[in-house]
């Protein structure tokens, strides 16, 4: 990796972009665009430059342009990552290859069809499951969760569903039905949430032959993840829990309960009164 000096001069970079139009092309092909790149320019900026100045037919998916929405996952120099989160000069000296995320079908150019991932994601019921639905849906109090309990799943909750991990996973490359790192990490995120009581329901999906045990810890998902979610870690926890559940060694725990409603809690001692209103 070369870090360029801080300067405002531009450099010509060859963008080798994968193109595919389902109406006219049988297979994807690579088209090269030579464009000027400034310090600080992201790959997403580069694609905009091409679309605005060179080739208006180029298609890709993006929205937030700041690493939050998870739309712009692409294969940059062979690595799945976010186009908006990657500066061109950080990964390219003269040439940059830009391709769609592999392990998904291509809709057009750089746009992958992420539906297979979302269907797997929804199959593991990625939301709080409790038997007392009424208590969940009526907002008459808050559930108690300690900071330590929060930390048990918070890392896995940072996932933005960009699919980079799915594109990096060698297991998914040969087994299309494998749930994949993102849905499995999401399952772990909810399993470990103390408000949730749905682990055993999710085990029905995560414990199948295309579930967590398909993962053999190649670790590519964790290396690829642009948000530091570490799905490989989540999947290994998931496997441990599946084994414990299978052997009936896991303690049965009740999901956490609601605290008092607003205004009904007991104030802690030694807390000074709020200052008088000034407005």
């Amino acid at each position, binding site marked *: 990796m070369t870090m360029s000096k801080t300067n405002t001069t531009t450099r010509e970079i060859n963008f080798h972009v994968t193109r595919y139009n389902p109406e006219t092309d049988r297979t994807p092909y690579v088209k090269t665009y030579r464009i000027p790149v400034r310090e600080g320019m992201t790959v997403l900026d580069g694609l905009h430059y091409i679309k605005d100045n060179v080739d208006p037919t180029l298609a890709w998916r993006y929205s937030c342009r700041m690493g939050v929405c998870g739309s712009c996952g692409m294969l940059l120099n*062979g690595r799945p990552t976010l186009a908006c989160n990657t500066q061109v000069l950080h990964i390219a000296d003269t040439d940059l290859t830009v391709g769609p995320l592999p*392990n998904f*079908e291509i809709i057009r150019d750089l746009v992958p069809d992420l539906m297979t991932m979302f269907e797997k994601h929804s199959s593991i019921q990625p939301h709080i499951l409790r038997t007392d639905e009424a208590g969940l849906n009526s907002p008459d109090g808050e559930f108690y969760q300690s900071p330590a309990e929060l930390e048990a799943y918070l890392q896995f909750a940072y996932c933005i569903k960009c699919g980079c991990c799915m594109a990096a996973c060698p297991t998914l490359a040969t087994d299309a039905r494998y749930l994949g790192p993102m849905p499995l990490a999401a399952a772990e995120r909810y399993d470990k949430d103390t408000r949730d009581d749905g682990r055993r329901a999710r085990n029905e999906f995560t414990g199948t032959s295309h579930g967590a045990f398909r993962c053999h810890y190649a670790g590519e998902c964790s290396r690829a993840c642009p948000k530091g979610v*570490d799905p490989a870690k989540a999947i*290994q926890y998931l496997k441990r829990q599946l084994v414990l559940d299978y052997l009936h060694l896991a303690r049965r725990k009740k999901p956490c309960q609601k605290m008092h409603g607003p205004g009904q809690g007991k104030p802690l001692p030694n807390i000074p009164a709020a200052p008088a209103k000034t407005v």
Partner: protein
Amino acid sequence: MAEIKRYDNRLGVWGWLGGGRWGIERYAYILHRLTGLAILLYFLMHVVVTSLRATGQYLWVEGGFFHQPIFKFGEFLVFAAFAYHALNGIRLVLVELGFAVGKPIEPIYPYKTSLNVQRPLLIIMMILAAILLAAGGSEFLGLGK
């Protein structure tokens, strides 16, 4: 909605080898699969070959067909595959039971992942495998004699 034509971009076996970043755990993963398949293949051949003994004793006598050096070397390869597969397997059992991957952390850039946490284990296992291979090499190939 009209059916849209799609291009299937799944990587297949190439994805084991070249889809994305290359990390040492990925090499370990590929080698684990290959050695697993090789050991399975060996086992099948082993069953067939030993069953031949019923009709072809002469293949086994000193200086017979199965005493050619290529078979010694083949045995060493099987041993090497087994040594690697067993030791890496111990690492995988530990890791996949959630040991040696660390606790959930706050992701702060540059990200540290569970891969960093379990890497010493990988290195220890590979050193052990190397020692076994050296010992096995001198035994099978007669290098020590």
